[in-house]
């Protein structure tokens, strides 16, 4: 039986989530922050799929399809907003308009 334990998937997912959180907190560019959010979404998706492996009714797999669609919609809307922000301010750096801490 060559079965991968569930805890391996959960650990990879935890690593991806925390790296996405680090990217989101560390970077100033808006596109970079969006990439971090996508990484966190995919970590949650990996969790759903790994738990759905032991399910007869594949509820996690069906839910991950909807998570994928919502992530893509969020990406398109956010890139359109970023484009408008670039037209308004001529840069897309977060937190550079007001005073930094």
């Amino acid at each position, binding site marked *: 039986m*060559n079965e*991968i334990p*569930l*805890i*391996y*998937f*959960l650990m*990879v997912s*935890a*690593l*991806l*989530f*925390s*790296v996405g*959180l*680090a*990217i989101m*907190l*560390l*970077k*100033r*560019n808006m*596109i*970079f922050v*969006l*990439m971090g959010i*996508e*990484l966190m979404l*995919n970590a949650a998706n*990996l969790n759903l*799929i*790994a738990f*759905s*492996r*032991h399910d007869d*009714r*594949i509820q996690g*797999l*069906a839910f*991950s*399809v*909807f998570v*994928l*669609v*919502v992530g*893509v*919609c969020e*990406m*398109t*809307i956010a*890139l*359109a*907003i*970023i*484009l*408008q922000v*670039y*037209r308004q301010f001529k*840069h897309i750096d977060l937190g550079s308009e007001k005073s930094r*801490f």
Partner: protein
Amino acid sequence: MSPMIASFLVLTMLTSASALAMAWTKNLLHAALSMFLCMLGLAGLYVMAYADVMAVSHLLIYVGGVLILILFGIMLTQQPGKVRAEMQNDLETKQSGRFWAMSISISTFLGIIWILTRSSITWAMYSDEAQKSSKLTYLGLTLLTEYSFAFELVGVFLLVALVGSTYIAKHHE
């Protein structure tokens, strides 16, 4: 070590190394390339979890769609005529910002790992036989019978997002 575990470790190394490279680099295009590698590794991990249909759709959507969208976003939001050193991304250079980001993310990671190692005993009831067959037929039937309302709602949601993003992105003069 069984070949399944070995290939899982290789895919894990690819995914986590490219994610860490994404966090490390300051260049936005390098980050897009790292995100491509990360998505490839994630699709391999989905195959390892017997979700082949999800792996294929993930490859189609992320590598084919979202990454192209990100590259277009990068190209449309760069100032023309800048020198190469200024085209790189502005990383958080203040020490406090990097400190808080690193400490929050590392403590999140350690907290999740702590919770996982503490609660792994209670998952013994889930660890029966895994479904090893392809789930394409069953997923299609489930989406069109049990989740049909959510499926239609997602279609309407995609249409709303498409029209809304084109409306937001146009010139408002």
